[in-house]
Structures are given as structure tokens and as C-alpha cells.
């Protein structure tokens, strides 16, 4: 078990929980997709895992350790990276400065930082080519690549991805999903939330469906192939 969410209840106001008794397990090295209609609580779930919201009940474990109550800026240190919705590059800083900040938590280990940087450049030659450019001048797809590369500087074990396709044109969505599958193949555990249900189901190993803040269905991809249309129809 890489990430284990154990019957959490969470929301923005104490009296009105958005998630009720939700459990999700993300297996190590697998890609787990969380899907559901608007308002199902997908984003709330990610926010709760990442410490923006504190669950009123239940617990969250990462590799056996409880991470409940940690602040968002303590998560990367625990090996959990979070690719947030929309662009998050530092637009007026160079590509290299962006990547260096990806190594903020290892900044005192100059050698490890240099190595991580070299590795990222090897994996993404386009970023090496543009390392002196300000990140805001990159294309939308390149910015996403930079965001992903930046998060992998410290070799986290788990990556949470929130709506990777928002604001990107269809061609780029395919590329980003290719990149996400790549990350999985490199051994990262991935948890993804996306409105583009079909896209997420295509690449996922395991799927959770949330509905109205509750667990609805879950199972391996095979269980959903062919029946996903029925699941979606239930939402409407």
C-alpha cells in the first residue's frame, strides 16, 4: 500500500462534510484514477490528502505512516508530490531556477541537487535546451512538462495529479497522458483525478468512482471496460 485513505470525513465547514466515510487505496507503482461527476468530492479528496483540509474523521497513511495533519509544504518531504490544477510554473523565473526550486527540500545537499538536475535534463532534453528562458515564455505543453519535471527533482514516491487536462488542447492532453504513463513505468505511484473520464480510465490500473461524497464503485480497469458508459449514465 503506497497511499491509504481510511474512511475519512472532510469538508470546508465542519457542519457540512463534502466527503463522508471515503476510503481509497493506491497500490505502489500503480496508477489509480478517481473519477466522478461534478461535485462528487474529487478535488476535496485531493485537498484533504495534501493537507489543505483536515479530515474530521478517519486517517491517511503513506507507506504506513500517518500523514494526517501535516501541512502542504511538509508533504514533499514525506515523498508525496502534488501536480496542482492549472499552470504552476514561476513565470518570471528561468527554467533552471524553476527546477532548482523543485529541489528546495534538498537545497543543502548541493551534490544531490546537481545530480537531480542532470537527470531531469537527460530525461527532458527540451528543458535543457530552454534552461535560460523564463518559464512564462514556454508553450502550454512545455510548461506542463516543466511542472512534472520540477516535482520529480526529489524523487517522490507518490504523485497526486489534479485535472491534468484542464486548459490544454486535445493534442497536448494526449502528450501529458503519455508522460503520466511514463512516470508510472518509472515506478512512481500515481493518483489522478480528471473530468476526462475516458482518458483516465484508459491509463488507470485501478479506478474509484465517487458520487455525492461517497464511495460508489471501485475495481481494476478490466471491471470498467465496457461498463464505464453505464457508470457515467448513472450520474445523469
Amino acid at each position, binding site marked *: 500500500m503506497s497511499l491509504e485513505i481510511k474512511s475519512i470525513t472532510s469538508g470546508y465547514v465542519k457542519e457540512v462534510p463534502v466527503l463522508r466515510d471515503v476510503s481509497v487505496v493506491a497500490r505502489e507503482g500503480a496508477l489509480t484514477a478517481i473519477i466522478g461527476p461534478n461535485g462528487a468530492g474529487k478535488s476535496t479528496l485531493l485537498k484533504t490528502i495534501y493537507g489543505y483540509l483536515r479530515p474530521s474523521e478517519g486517517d491517511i497513511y503513506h507507506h504506513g505512516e500517518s500523514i494526517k495533519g501535516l501541512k502542504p*509544504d511538509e508533504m514533499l518531504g514525506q515523498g508525496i508530490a502534488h501536480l496542482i490544477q492549472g499552470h*504552476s510554473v*514561476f*513565470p518570471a523565473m528561468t527554467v533552471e531556477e524553476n527546477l532548482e526550486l523543485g529541489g528546495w527540500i534538498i537545497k543543502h545537499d548541493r551534490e544531490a541537487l546537481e545530480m537531480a538536475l542532470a537527470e531531469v535534463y537527460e530525461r527532458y532534453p527540451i528543458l535543457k535546451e530552454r534552461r535560460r528562458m523564463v518559464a512564462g515564455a514556454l508553450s502550454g505543453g512545455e510548461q506542463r512538462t516543466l511542472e512534472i519535471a520540477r516535482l520529480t527533482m526529489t524523487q517522490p514516491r507518490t504523485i497526486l495529479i489534479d485535472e491534468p487536462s484542464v486548459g490544454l488542447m486535445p493534442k497536448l492532453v494526449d502528450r501529458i497522458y503519455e508522460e503520466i504513463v511514463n512516470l508510472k513505468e518509472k515506478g512512481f505511484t500515481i493518483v489522478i483525478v480528471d473530468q476526462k473520464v475516458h482518458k483516465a480510465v484508459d491509463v488507470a490500473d485501478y479506478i474509484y468512482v465517487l458520487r455525492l461524497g461517497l464511495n460508489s464503485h471501485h475495481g481494476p480497469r478490466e471491471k470498467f471496460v465496457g461498463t464505464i458508459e453505464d457508470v457515467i449514465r448513472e450520474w445523469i
Partner: protein
Amino acid sequence: MEFSIFVQLLVLGLVRGSMYALMGVGLSLIFGIMGIVNFAHGELFMMGCYLMYFVTRMVGLPFPVGIIASGAGLLIVGIILEKGLISPLRRKAGREWLMDSFVLTIGLMVIFQNLALITFGAIQRGIPNLVTGQMVIREVVFIYDHLVILSLALLTVGLLWYFIKYTSMGKAIRATSQHSEGAQTLGIDVSTMYAIAFGIGAALAGISGALLITLFPANPNAGMGPVLKSFVVVIVGGLGNVKGAVAAGIMVGLLEAFAMFFLAGGWQNVIVTSIVIAVLVFKPAGLFAPAGERP
């Protein structure tokens, strides 16, 4: 115009301008990173004046110690204000907190002025000069005091630039100002960055107060004039644009020096205010904003 007069005005303008730049940079830094318009910036300047006066006059230490004490003292004051008042406000007020921060800093301005009035009275506490003497080169008078102020102001701006541009803390502060949520996911503690940024902004105001004590003696309202000028600088340079604040500060200083000489004392305010109005109408992002950037 005679060359010597031109050089004289240039020096006077640069001295004024460097101080405006120093104040404006602090104000701009705080706005750029936190979105707060710090109306109490002039009172931080005033505290710098008092610290300088007490360290050099009452304790009798040399003036560089006074400047460092003002900078360090205001750094601490800034961090305490941020951690104690602004940060809780940000957490509690949610999205409305910007408006609330306006009210907070205006309130702080009133409180600090009156605290100074109660504690120190309405007495001007000045120092005639930091260094005595002057030199004359080809009919141009260089007052040592002015040269010291100018070079220390430039040194401070230079050190700040180095800190923001090259140190990892400086980079984290810039990252926080450009995308705070993104910075957080990289493990940067943004609330600490806010406190440090506010502290540095306050320290710059304190250093300005210390350097300018020969022109603005310490008194409860000492910050009122300089803060108005720093708002001018920040508007002309572009809110949140630190480089713009330096350029605008020096520009306004030079304009004032030349306007006072060629038109008459008082006209400098007319010209500078007209420029502010023109900038707000025609180029609200400031004269030095990169193309396409909104204020």
C-alpha cells in the same frame, strides 16, 4: 546652463532619488509578494529615525551602528507585525483579507504615530549631519553627508538585489510571489516567506529613516512625507515591480531637483503629481512594466 550647476543638481537629485528608491522598493516588495498596500510604511520609517537617534545620540555609538540597528530593529518589527497581525488576518478573513489588510495598516499608522507622540512627545530629534565637511571640485560642492547617504542607499539596494536574485531564500521569495500554491507543493513554507518579505520591506524603510535623519528629524509624523513620495514611486514604477521602483525613485528625485531649481520651490510637487496622474490614466501598470503585464 553651467556645467557645475548641472552636476550639482544631478548629485542632489540622485541623493533624493536613492532614498525614494529605498522606500519605494520596500513598499513594492511587500505589495508584489503579499498583495498588501502597507499604509504604515511611513511609520516604519519613523521608527528607523528614532532608533538612529537613540543609538547615535543617546547611547553615543557611531552612525554605521545606528543604521544597522535601524535595519535590524525594523526587520524584527516587520516579522512580528506579519506573524502577529497580518498572517492571522490572512488565515481568518479568507478572500476578503486584502480589504481587511488595508484597514489594518491604516490602523497601525494611526496607532504608531500616537504611541510615538505619547512616548517621545512632539519634539523634533535631529542630527545635523552624519559626517561633517564637504569638498569642492571645479566649483561643484559635494557635501560628504550626501555622498554617504547616496552610497549607502545604493549599497543597500545592491545587497537586496543580490539577495533576491541569487540566494536560495531570495528565489523562494520570488517563487512565492509568482505562484504561492506552486511554491507550497515544492516544500516552501510560504508563511515564513511572507514574514521574511515583510520584514525586509520594513527594514528598508528603517534604513531610509536612519539615513535621512539629517533631513527628516525624528518626530511622530516624520514618515508622512516620505511615505507619500514612496507611493508616487511605486505607482510610477509599477506596483510590485522592484526594479521599476528603483528606476522611478531616481527619476522622481532628479525631476524634483531640477524642477526646484528651474521653476521654484513647490513646483516639484506639481510636476510629480501630474506625472502620477498621467501614469495612472495612460499606463496604469507603471512606466517600467514589461509589455502586456497588468498592474
